[in-house]
Structures are given as structure tokens and as C-alpha cells.
């Protein structure tokens, strides 16, 4: 028991202390979180009228971010597969950090959904036994189940590995092998279910497409890896951890294939909608070209398309992929491109025109932006603290007392 306590205290102390840059980074994150919380308290008090959402566009920036982040979380699988199934050494060494990205992303997902709720205190109504979860009918229930499960799986994987190394015990792959195997289809499932949440709605022709789930997965395997390869470069710069170039280039290569598929699926969708030209075309026409002179998303979606194409080329060609300047430009364009396309570019046109034909041009308010930034900062904080601890354990800077018998 004493060991547990002292190990815990040591862990907390270690994760929060560091050099000047580290402390400044934490300070920035806490400040942003502070403003986010302040804005959220105001929203809680006044109601969601502090947002720009209305009956016509009843989901907005929160759900857009949620959708994007489910993709980021799912993308951890892109490291797990080469690491464990193909035993690709350079990636195996960093797979833990990918799983941490997944954990942080799921935490953010949960926060975004909570921020979007009109009655967050009643969240327990969705739970089984004590609430009245509408299972299996509601896809939102499925989403809660798969996201929670994914969080648990990845947390166990990370905690087990770190604990083993920190206590100097052998890492028994056989013991967690089933969990690793499950995590692969589970990662696919979280994004599939999130896509089904939209595509199951016949009332919204823009989402009611069977291609949505494949598109979600393809774009997730772009943005997730792009985020990871930027984080990995930062980590090896600011800490003693070693991450091989080979691992980073491999991740970029995989992202390139994913972007190729993503662009192809988009083209298939655009052809079908525009060529058949039914009344269901309206939202897509609105998104790319505008309707009745209203086109507030068009500049954004074209930007996203251009970014996605450029990043695809930069990641596809070995010459640019293995040049860190081009690689990083590509990664940033890819993140932004997918963020626009799958965030606002997916959620908002679902509601424009609304089911009775009205066009309400939604754009997030300052309050929504502050809360969103606060949640992103929370995710970054969660990742930073986890990564700091993990690097400490990897490099031997922190060790646990070994008398612990628990595991």
C-alpha cells in the first residue's frame, strides 16, 4: 500500500515538473482550459442559446469536432497493425504513443458530446440498469458503448506496458495479445458506428449514403497519422526518446494511401449526386457551390479539397515524403483538410437546407470556439502528461518500487 502511495506521488510530481518550456506549455494549456470552463459555465447557465445552433441547424461545431476526433482515435490502429501483426520494429517502439493519442482523442470526444448536451446532469439516463439505454435501436448508444470500450482497451494496454517497464518486470505479450487483437476491429468499429449514426438518418440525404462509413475510415487514416507524426517529431526534439525516421516515413506512406482512397470515395460520391441530380443534391450543391446565393461553406470546402490533394501528392512521392519540410507541410495540410471536410463540412450541410427547405447559415459563436479550444487543450494536457510519464519510464528517469504484487 505504501508503495502504491509513494509511486503515485512520485508519478504526479514527475509528470508536472520539467524544464521552463515544459512548464510554460502546461501554463498555456491550463489558461486555455480556464477560459473554456468559464465559457462552459456560462453556457450551462444560459443554455445552448450561447451557441449559434438553432432548430434548423441543431448540431454544430461541437459535434463536428467530435466526428473528427473519433477518426483520430481510430487511427491508432494504423500503428498497431504494423507494430504487432507485421512486427515492424521502428513502429513497435512507438505504438504506445499512438495509443495515447487514441486515449486523448476519446477523452475529447466525450467532452465534446457532453458540451453539446442540453441536460448534461441527466447523462446517466443513457446507462444500462440505472438509466434506460435505447439499445440496440439508437446508434448514439452504440457509439457510447464502443467509445467507452475503446478507451478502456487502450488505457489497459498503455497502463500495463508502462507499469511493466517501470517496475522492471518482463512485458508479457501473450497476456495482452487478445486485447491487442480486439483493439484492431474495435478501432474500425468506433468510426463505423459514428458514421452509421449519420448515415442511418433518412431525413438527411447528405448523410444518408452508404459510402459514408468507408469515407470516414479513409479520412481518419489520414488525419490521425498526420497528427501523430507531428507529435512524434516534437517529442523526440524535446525529450530523450528516440523515434526512428523510418517509423515516421512509414506512417506518412500509409496516410498517403488512405488519402488516395479518401479522394476516390469523395469523387464517387460527388459523381453520383451531381449526375443523378435528384432533390437530394441540394446539400452538396450548397456545400460546394451555394444555393440561392448562399454559400458560406464553399470557400472552406474548396480549401479542404486543395489541401487534401496537395498533401496526398507530398506524402505519396518518396522524395517529398522523406524531406521533413515537405513532410510537415503535408501533415499540416492533411490535418486541416480533413478537419474541415469531416468537421464543419460534414455536419453542417446535413442541416442545410433543413428538412423544410430553409437555409440557416450556421457559424460558431465565440463561446463555442472558447469551449472547443478548452476541450482541445484538455486533450493536449492529457496527452502531455501521459507522454511525459511514458518517456520518463522509457528512459529510466522514473522507476517504481518493485514490491507491488498487483500486476
Amino acid at each position, binding site marked *: 500500500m505504501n508503495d502504491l502511495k509513494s509511486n503515485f506521488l512520485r508519478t504526479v510530481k514527475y509528470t508536472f515538473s520539467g524544464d521552463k518550456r515544459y512548464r510554460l506549455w502546461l501554463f498555456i494549456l491550463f489558461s486555455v482550459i480556464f477560459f473554456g470552463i468559464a465559457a462552459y459555465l456560462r453556457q450551462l447557465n444560459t443554455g445552448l442559446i450561447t451557441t449559434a445552433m438553432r*432548430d*434548423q441547424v441543431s448540431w454544430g461545431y461541437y459535434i463536428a469536432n467530435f466526428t473528427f476526433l473519433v477518426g483520430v482515435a481510430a487511427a491508432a490502429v494504423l500503428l498497431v497493425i504494423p507494430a504487432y501483426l507485421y512486427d515492424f520494429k521502428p513502429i513497435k517502439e512507438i505504438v504506445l504513443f499512438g495509443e495515447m493519442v487514441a486515449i486523448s482523442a476519446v477523452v475529447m470526444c466525450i467532452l465534446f458530446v457532453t458540451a453539446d448536451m442540453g441536460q448534461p446532469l*441527466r447523462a446517466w439516463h443513457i446507462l444500462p440498469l440505472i438509466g434506460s439505454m*435505447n439499445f440496440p*435501436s*439508437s446508434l448514439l448508444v452504440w457509439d457510447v458503448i464502443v467509445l467507452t470500450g475503446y478507451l478502456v482497451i487502450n488505457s489497459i494496454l498503455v497502463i500495463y506496458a508502462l507499469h511493466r517497464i517501470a517496475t522492471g518486470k518482463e512485458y508479457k505479450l501473450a497476456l495482452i495479445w487478445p486485447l491487442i487483437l480486439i483493439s484492431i476491429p474495435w478501432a474500425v468499429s468506433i468510426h463505423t458506428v459514428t458514421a452509421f*449514426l449519420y448515415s442511418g438518418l433518412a431525413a438527411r440525404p447528405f448523410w444518408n449514403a452508404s459510402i459514408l462509413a468507408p469515407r470516414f475510415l479513409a479520412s481518419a487514416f489520414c488525419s490521425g497519422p498526420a497528427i501523430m507524426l507531428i507529435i512524434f517529431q516534437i517529442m523526440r526534439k524535446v525529450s530523450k526518446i528516440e523515434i526512428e525516421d523510418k517509423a515516421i516515413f512509414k506512417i506518412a506512406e500509409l496516410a498517403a494511401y488512405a488519402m488516395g482512397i479518401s479522394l476516390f470515395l469523395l469523387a464517387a460520391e460527388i459523381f453520383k449526386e451531381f449526375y443523378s441530380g435528384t432533390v437530394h443534391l441540394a446539400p452538396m450543391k450548397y456545400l460546394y457551390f451555394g444555393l440561392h446565393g448562399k454559400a458560406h461553406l464553399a470557400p472552406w470546402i474548396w480549401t479542404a479539397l486543395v489541401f487534401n490533394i496537395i498533401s496526398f501528392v507530398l506524402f505519396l512521392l518518396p522524395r517529398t515524403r522523406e524531406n521533413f519540410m515537405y513532410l510537415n507541410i503535408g501533415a499540416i495540410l492533411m490535418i486541416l483538410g480533413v478537419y474541415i471536410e469531416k468537421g464543419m463540412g460534414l455536419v453542417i450541410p446535413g442541416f442545410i*437546407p433543413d*428538412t423544410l*427547405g430553409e437555409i440557416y447559415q450556421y457559424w460558431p459563436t465565440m463561446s463555442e470556439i472558447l469551449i472547443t479550444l478548452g476541450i482541445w487543450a484538455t486533450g493536449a494536457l492529457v496527452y502531455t502528461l501521459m507522454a511525459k510519464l511514458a518517456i520518463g519510464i522509457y528512459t529510466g528517469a522514473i522507476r517504481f518500487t518493485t514490491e507491488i504484487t498487483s500486476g
Partner: protein
Amino acid sequence: MTKKENNEPGKAMIDRRLFLKSTALGLAGTALPLKKARASIWNSFFQEHFSEMDDGEIKKVLERLEQENQKKYGRNIDIRADKPIEGVKFAYALDLSRCVGCRKCVYACVSENNQSRNPQIHWISVLKFKKDDKWIDLENADRYYDPNLVPEDDSFYMPVQCQQCEDPPCVKVCPTQATWKEKDGIIVVDYNWCIGCRYCMAACPYGARHFNWSKPGIPKDEINPNTHYLGNRPRYKGVVEKCTFCVQRTRVGKYPACVEVCPVGARKFGDLLDPDSEIRYIIENKRVFRLKEDLNTIPKFYYFFAT
């Protein structure tokens, strides 16, 4: 049944269900100032799902809500929970050839059903269409036409409200079963169970669901005090609401407010299961259609042209 009014924490723990809730909701539970909390807050937080309560429990809840409303609005608001009438299924018909687009139904509905005035919530939207080859072309519908000009010769009007689907997508997607179809075919919302996720609003093809983006604003003297738990009782901030065919009226044999107020008699209402009802006559003898039939939601709301 004692558990509903039980405000002594020690005693409450005996109850299995409350115990489960308290444990699983440790965080939420401890966040509540338990000792100081009025029984009302505690009971309202842990109020059960409507369908899981027996008559006695419902009665207690209604009493508590009436007290809360007394405090909030400074007047007595009667909340009933009349059950569906056996063997009745309500349906609606609307004669588009008569509707003049005056929006009297919209405002009668607002005052009958205690909709928020500020921000404005309307359960009925009247759409204006041009009388041209495009027919019901939603994309070119106008919801914000000038009421002083109606009826305009080149236009026709189509009021849209909850279509009370037989296969309602909103009920299907609700994660907490806070909305459901009653035996008389009416889709209702339990405002004390809705978590405000608005998935139902995304799923509804008719724009029939409305959200309380802020605390509903209704002048005290304009409140209709005759209410139903599943219908027009005062709502909360952060929950979804919708047309219930005036459940507080129709279950005691009255017409919905919109039917009564319509100056041109365009609105018809009745029992779908009664072969001699007016609604059955219309369905069998007029050329009726339903909105977005291709979605297979099977609305119980029929549009027709009598002349």
C-alpha cells in the same frame, strides 16, 4: 413507492435501485449538496422513466411538479397524466385547397401549448409555395412570408407540424427512450428524461422537433394552466418538445387547438380506427397524400384537396 418521496439519505440507501444509482453516479451524487438539498431537487434528479412509474408514483411526481411550477410561475398549473383512450388512434387531415396561410393555428398552438415566446418556438410552420409546375418544392418554400398579404393568388400554403408517424425515426434514434409512441398513436416526450442530445431533431424529416435553447420565456399571465405531463406543461431549458395533437385536450374528447381555431375549416381530426369518423371519410373519399412518403415513416397526417 416510498422511495420517491424519501429524502433521508440513510433510508434511501436501502432501496436497490437508488443504491445502484447513487453508487454509479458517485460523482454526480457527491456534487449535490445532499444535506442541504431540498427533497425536490433530489427527487427531480432521480425521477424514474415515465413508463417505469406506477400510478401512485406518477401522482407524486405530478404533485412535485405542480409545486415547482407554483414557485416558478406564482400560479397554480394543473398537470394531469390522462392515459390514451382504449381503441382510439388519432389522425389528422389538412385541406390545402382551403388553407389561406393566416397562421391562426400557429398562434393558437403557441398559447394552448405554452410554447416559449422568447426565444420563439412554433410547433407549426406554415410554408408558402408558388402555384407553378414545381408543386411542393420544399427547397423553394417560404416560411417567412408576410401575413398581411395572405391569401396571395399565385400561392398556396401548407402548414407542417409533427406528422405523428407510425414508424417514427425520432423514437428510433433517441438514446434514452425519452420519446415514444403512445397507444393512441401520439409521439410524446418526457421533458424530465430528455438529455437534450438533439439526435431526434437530426432524424425528424419534418422539422417537427424544437429545442429549448434557453429557459422558455412565457409571460406568467399567458400560461395555460390546463396541462398534461406528456404535453403542454411548462418545459425546461435544454430539452426537446413537439406537437402532441394537444394530448391534454384530445384525450378528454376535445379537438386540438389548431382545429378549433382554423377560420376556414381546413383542419380535420379524428379516430383512425372508427370507420364512421370524418378522418376515415376523408382518407377513403378524397385524394390524400402524405409528406415525404418515400421515407416510409407512415405519417398519420394527411394532406388533401377538397375542392
